[in-house]
């Protein structure tokens, strides 16, 4: 039972882990990303569509590119056009929600899902994305915490004027971070349609993007923390599903909806205990203005 549970956590975690890492990268650079949900949706859809004609691994790459493309719009709007970053993210969520439904109907004459694709082959009983989800948090951690680029990235989120004084173009740096963030969210979406399932379904990612944002906050805006929280939340999801099938009496005792609310409630609890001000990047949400010193 424990082993089976662990195994299902390994399978459920990748979408959430990738997306949480994506959210973290963007927000550490100072750009709010509540558009993760839409970027995941773009990734899930594009990956499934591409995998109908191309090998599935290529489909996953297309999914990443789609996520990055949506993120580029977010970056352009919030960095160049000075849009409110929250508005831009939420607008993209709404557009992607509707666009996915529209294209599903237009291309596949279906309100519910794309045709089935070949799932990613299993390596050692699990999808390669599972192994990637175990390794990537450490890679992103090293990138953010130990490289010059990571230092600049973090500084752009805390005190962009300081980065500019070093001769670094803050806006270009932030744009890069946002696009990378979208690629990671797109990878998370692709993991849904190419590994968790074998097609794009109309409700994808059904709120996982927001759960990824919760994981980022829960993990205090650090890659390892975010990935850890994402895994913890995925564990919660897996536990919930396995409880319903293996121990229905217990599931009766603790209703499904309560378990589903738990990640968000816990995040709120942690926030209310430790306070929000000293954890989030200091310049989060503020467009960089070269004239402000």
């Amino acid at each position, binding site marked *: 039972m424990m082993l089976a549970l662990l195994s299902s956590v390994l399978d459920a975690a990748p979408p959430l882990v990738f997306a949480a890492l994506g959210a973290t990268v963007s927000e550490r650079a100072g750009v*709010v990303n*509540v558009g993760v949900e839409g970027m995941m949706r773009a990734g899930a859809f594009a990956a499934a569509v591409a995998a109908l004609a191309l090998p599935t691994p290529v489909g996953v790459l297309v999914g990443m590119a789609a996520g990055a493309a949506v993120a580029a*719009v977010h970056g352009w*709007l919030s960095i*160049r*056009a*000075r*849009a*409110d970053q*929250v*508005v*831009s993210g*939420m*607008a*993209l*969520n*709404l*557009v*992607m*929600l*509707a*666009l996915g*439904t*529209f294209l*599903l*109907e*237009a*291309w596949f*004459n279906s*309100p519910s899902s794309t045709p089935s694709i070949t799932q990613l082959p299993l390596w050692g009983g699990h999808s390669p994305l599972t192994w990637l989800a175990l390794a990537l948090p450490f890679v992103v951690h090293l990138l953010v915490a130990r490289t010059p680029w990571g230092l600049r990235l973090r500084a752009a989120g805390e005190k962009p004027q300081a980065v500019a004084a070093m001769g670094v173009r803050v806006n270009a740096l932030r744009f890069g971070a946002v696009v990378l963030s979208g690629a990671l969210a797109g990878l998370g979406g692709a993991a849904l349609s190419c590994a968790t399932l074998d097609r794009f379904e109309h409700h994808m990612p059904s*709120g996982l993007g*927001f*759960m990824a*944002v*919760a994981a980022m*906050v829960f993990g205090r805006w650090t890659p390892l923390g975010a990935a850890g929280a994402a895994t913890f939340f995925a564990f919660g999801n897996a536990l919930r599903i396995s409880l319903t099938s293996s121990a229905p009496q217990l599931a009766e005792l603790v*209703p*499904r*909806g*309560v378990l*589903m*609310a738990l990640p*968000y*409630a816990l*995040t*709120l609890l942690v*926030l*209310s205990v430790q*306070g*929000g*001000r*000293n954890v*989030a990047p200091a310049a989060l949400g503020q467009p960089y203005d070269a004239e402000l010193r």
Partner: protein
Amino acid sequence: MRRALPSVLSVLAAIAVCFVAAGLTRGFDTAAEAFLAMLYGAFGDWPRYLETGNAAAVLRPLGESATKAAILTFTGLSVAVAFRVGLFNIGAQGQLVVGALTAAVLGAQVQLPAVLHLPLCLAGAALAGALWALLPAWLKLRRGVHEVISTIMLNWVAVSLVDNWLVTGPLRASAAGSNSISGTDEILPTAALPRLLPESSRLHLGIVLAALAAVVTWLFLTRFVRGFEWKVIGLSPEAARAAGVGVSRGLFSAMLLAGAFAGLGGAVLILGTEYKYPAALGAPWGFDGIAMALIGQGHPLGVLGTSTFFGGLRAGGTRMQLFGVHRSFPELMQGLALLFIAARLLWDRLLRRVGSAPR
């Protein structure tokens, strides 16, 4: 009027993009027919009315549009009043959900004459929404937690608890005495929003309440000292504090009002058309409120106008289904319009170039 220009242009651009998208996938002739059908479905099939004299051709679509416009107006006002004090209420969805549930429960479980029952349900829903908004306000003021994060979390707490537990579990319709298979018990007729037209149209009191709320909010924000204080808080909390305005009180009361409006949106949905809390709410009405508030430029009457327009398109959207275009297509227009309006700097530049008036 000048303030409305970016909104109008954004909406037109969004419609144009969507028309091209529909044209490229379904052919431009079909797209044109589908868009015409959508307009008839939104604002009435006037040609058919003039031809046959059948009033239902106009009244039925208008009724459908108005029911949707009422909900959008309330959630749009919710986001807009929070904006006024500089808060971003992403939580309208959660507030709407708890408001809707409260209305459904009060409407089904309490027995009162209609003059009391309907107001009780509306007040209960408003109170529930306001309470759900209390927490993010408190977290913001006392713990420094950004309201965007806390309201996102509370949305999903509300949706999980209500949709995946209460409505499928403890509050699920009792089998006897109810013909609903899923969702809560049906509300009693005394709690329903009265229909304004006979038979052919579902037009109900909701749109009147929504319009009233928009006008009252507009008067409050522009004609009352407290409303002016909110504006000052939104423009600069420091300046407001220096001028002796109670900033905390302003933020609290604006957020409570925002929650109440979203809760009322939920009540209108339940008491107007659903008559119970359904298994699935259908549309993310609370998130749509963000679009309504921004396209409406945060102005209560702008919100009312935007909601009426998009409420209409959504009602008309069902008719696009006949032409192979998904009925959620108007939501794509709405999303794109929001995206276009978001690029504020570009609009500022454009407006400065077009005219000389300062913003």
